[in-house]
């Protein structure tokens, strides 16, 4: 009787192939993004996210074609992130068939880009991706900071304050990746997920470090996330989307079955 929590498989895409890093270093291959997306669509995924980790221009053109192929075959929402730096980048991806774009480091270097993007295309299609890492020491009050460059560069920006600022500028959704957890499969950082979800009025997607179905449940209940994103547990058939949804439903979470 309520809005369903969304399950979002995320495909890291490099030069037209799905990859997934473990702590952003050890990369494994999970195949053609459109084929993977179709399988998720058939299984009942609520959305798909493509994160383009390609650095080259040729690779970015490949991504546009991948999004076009995807959009003519898969009829659930698609978010595209990675390398979105200009209004033209956004327009290209939306025209190719993406429903939302995710802005990451460009927001850190130029926060006003988020305002410009939201003014031009509407907040509903502007997701701001935040990579947060815990910086407080044991015994101190919890504090998380924004990191860039795959978690290597600290920015000194407080993650919760940053999220609030992004929403004020027009972000329609926050994609929160807790960096110290990512790829190590210990689950989401529930503290920062809950702190940001409580602090902003827009939906928050929890991301980073999912190793089992209890992590998805905890993200929704303790982390108060509106959606949960995961990659490798789905890519390598450890769990299927229907298994994940059934598991969540049995624990009292609204899902779309």
């Amino acid at each position, binding site marked *: *009787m*309520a*809005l*369903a*929590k*969304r399950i979002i498989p995320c495909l890291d895409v490099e030069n037209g192939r799905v990859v997934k890093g473990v702590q952003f270093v050890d990369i494994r291959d999970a195949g053609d993004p459109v084929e993977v997306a179709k399988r998720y*669509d058939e299984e*009942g995924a*609520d959305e798909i996210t493509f994160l383009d980790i390609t650095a080259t221009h040729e690779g970015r053109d490949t991504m546009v074609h991948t999004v076009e192929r995807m*959009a*003519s*075959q898969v*009829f*659930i*929402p698609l978010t595209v992130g990675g390398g979105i730096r200009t209004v033209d980048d956004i327009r290209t991806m*939306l*025209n*190719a*068939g*993406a*429903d939302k774009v995710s802005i990451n480091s460009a927001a850190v270097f130029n926060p006003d880009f988020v305002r410009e993007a939201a003014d031009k*295309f*509407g*907040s*509903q*299609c502007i997701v701001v991706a935040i990579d947060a890492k815990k910086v407080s020491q044991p015994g101190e009050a919890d504090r998380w900071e924004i990191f860039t460059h795959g978690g290597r560069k600290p920015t000194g920006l407080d993650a919760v304050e940053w999220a609030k600022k992004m929403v004020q500028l027009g972000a*329609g*959704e926050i994609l929160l990746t807790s960096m110290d957890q990512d790829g190590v499969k210990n689950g989401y950082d529930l503290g920062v997920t809950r702190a940001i979800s409580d602090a902003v*009025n*827009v*939906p*928050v997607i929890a991301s980073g470090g999912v190793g089992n179905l209890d992590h998805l449940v905890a993200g929704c209940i303790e982390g108060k996330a*509106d*959606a949960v994103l995961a990659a490798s547990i789905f890519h390598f058939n450890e769990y299927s989307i229907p298994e994940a949804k059934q598991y969540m439903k049995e624990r009292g979470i609204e899902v*779309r079955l």
Partner: protein
Amino acid sequence: MSSVAVIDYGMGNLHSVAKALEHVMPDVEVLVTADPEQVRNADRVLLPGVGAIRDCMAEIRRLGVDKEVAEAINSGKPFLGICVGYQALMQRSEENGGVDCLGHFDGTVRYFGDDLKETDGERLKVPHMGWNEVHQRFDHPLWHGIDDGSRFYFVHSYYVDAVDKPLVAANCHYGVDIDVAIARDNVFATQFHPEKSHTVGLQLLKNFLNWDGKR
């Protein structure tokens, strides 16, 4: 070959809805257009829309889409409005400080508010984004093959509050009861996005392409 005009007034991604129509009925001609002649000659007309209502209404008026919509509705041909294309059919929206809309239905488009809560006190996020249950109010050819209570995909911060409740074809609950589909004669319109709503959404689009515009 039957044809459907998807009215293009420069607001939002029309690729998805055009691809979805082609997907459910490969032999239908899908025209993404604002040309009055093409809209007039099409067998069916679809009014999409995303973004802020003020910008949408400004473009609708500047391009003469308001006249195309009125003509299509009066012609009796099947007409489908989606999201802002649904809201635009109402009398007025509270968005952007108040904007007059096309007035084909008596009703107001209202803001969910900044402190929206579920009846049990749970705080609700705005926009209303994701899959929610759609409760059908009456039988309609566009509901054919779609179970009552099926979940459709929504993304919006403003909702329709219609005056003529008997015309409301579906409700949804998100803190408040909202009117998420309306039907009168040859017109059907939805707040949710059928083109993003997987099999149930594709079924609704297929029903639209098979619909003769009568109840």
